[in-house]
């Protein structure tokens, strides 16, 4: 069974179509990158997966069940900004989610349970390389470190789906490369299904096992006023690597389509 099934989804804002005819089935463990020009609805697509917004029509299913009407722990998210809580230390940020789950009223654990959770959280911080700064506040961290923290914070909930909205868009190229390696390793180890929105085609192709290209039809097309849709659904055959998988010619063609 597919982890995520999307059937005939369309989204309108005040009657203006943004997305239409979205039909895909994504298997568990796939790494889907969502690419496209700005304003083509790729973030809207992600927000619908997150239940931050609801489709105007069509349906989204996760593991065969209709998606919950509001965000929940089955779908983790990392945004470009505002993903970590500035008033909590690095460690507290990671301990937050399990605290919510295990302590309904106090929203935090005490005593032996807290110690056990701290140990668990430290393992996640170790995995993203932040164990040394666990008592710092996020404001003291670099942008890349904040995104590592956001990823650890999402992973400790073991979500079925990890949704990334331009997570590395604000980082410098060197940091970005490190983050790609980290993300690829975490994805392999966890076997999660990942959706990642990016405006960087190179990033989309190097990270994903599957690339979804969102685009509007050209203005001459009669359907132009009907919003964007998935114009290419590229199943990349082999494990993703930093090398281009598609021939340069094909890559260029999509690049022109998307950015033109």
């Amino acid at each position, binding site marked *: 069974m597919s982890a995520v099934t999307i059937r005939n989804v369309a989204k309108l804002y005040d009657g203006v179509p943004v997305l239409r005819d979205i039909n895909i089935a994504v298997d568990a463990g796939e790494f889907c990158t969502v690419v496209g020009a700005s304003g083509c609805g790729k973030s809207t697509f992600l927000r619908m997966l*997150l239940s*931050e917004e609801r489709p105007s029509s069509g349906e989204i299913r996760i593991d065969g069940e209709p998606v919950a009407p509001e965000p929940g722990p089955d779908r983790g998210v990392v945004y470009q900004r505002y993903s970590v809580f500035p008033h909590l230390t690095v460690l507290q940020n990671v301990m937050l989610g399990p605290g919510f789950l295990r302590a*309904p*009223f106090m*929203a935090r654990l005490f005593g032996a349970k807290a110690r056990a959770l701290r140990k668990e959280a430290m393992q996640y911080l170790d995995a993203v390389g932040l164990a040394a700064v666990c008592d710092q*506040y996020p404001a003291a961290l670099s942008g890349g470190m904040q995104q590592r923290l956001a990823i650890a914070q999402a992973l400790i909930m073991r979500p079925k789906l990890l949704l990334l909205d331009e997570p590395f868009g604000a980082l410098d190229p060197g940091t970005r490369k490190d983050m790609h390696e980290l993300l690829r390793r975490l994805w392999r180890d966890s076997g999660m299904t990942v959706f990642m929105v990016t405006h960087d085609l190179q990033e989309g192709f190097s990270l994903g096992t599957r690339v979804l290209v969102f685009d509007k039809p050209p203005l001459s097309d009669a359907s132009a006023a009907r919003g964007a849709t998935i114009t290419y659904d590229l199943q990349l055959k082999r494990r993703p690597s930093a090398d281009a998988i598609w021939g340069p010619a094909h890559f260029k063609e999509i690049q022109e389509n998307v950015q033109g």
Partner: protein
Amino acid sequence: MRRIINWHPSRAGAFMLGAVPFILLIVLYLIFSDLRLAANPNDKLLPAPGRIWDTIVRLAMVEDRRSGAILLWRDTGASLMRLFIGLAAATLAGLCVGIATGLIPYMRSTFGPLIAIVSMVPPMAVLPILFIVLGLGEVAKIVLIIIGVAPFLMRDLAIRVSELPRAQLVKAQTLAASSWQIVLRVVLPQIMPRLIDGVRLSLGPAWLFLIAAEAIAATEGLGYRIFLVRRYLAMDVILPYVVWITLLAFAMDYLLRLLKRIICPWASDGASRR
């Protein structure tokens, strides 16, 4: 020649510069007090420092013959009690209503317009109603402070809550947080600095309403004393009382600032370290 905006005093220099206006004010007072007393030894408007000191000793250390209490402390105790109860109640109300209307759309739709209108009612205009309804006792004075301060805090906090990034609230939901848990661990700690700042800004109005209420109907209190001795032009009482009230307000402001640094370390140091 460097621009004036680029000239910075040293640390010690800044302290001295800050002291200059105070010293100047005191010197001016002494000069004019001396001039007036030279012309008329019975002048009451600008009493000599010695006379003010005698009065302070009488008010702060000697029991009042009629009531058997030491007036300054009894007045201070009565006023601070009213002020603290009023501010505490207003803060609690501001916090609860601010979070509820800032975070819960149904609450905002229901109470937003009411709060917006009520906060425009001049509290002093309501004071007679309070005295009529609640009597001349402590409750009316405390309620005046609450009415004067709470709507500001409610609106201030509601705005701050609604300014929290939407992404943060979604993120908390993906971490399995319930609405209550979001209030407890995401919203409350993050509006704490703003709440403390709001209370600091409310200190001025709170004192204003307190003294106004005491001036009209009270048997003790700092404001009561000032307005009582006004009839005798007793500047030797009024001036120390005003200075004392100012010191109290300043100390409260300072303590609140300290409190903010202690309970919200991330809001001051952490944020600026970057």
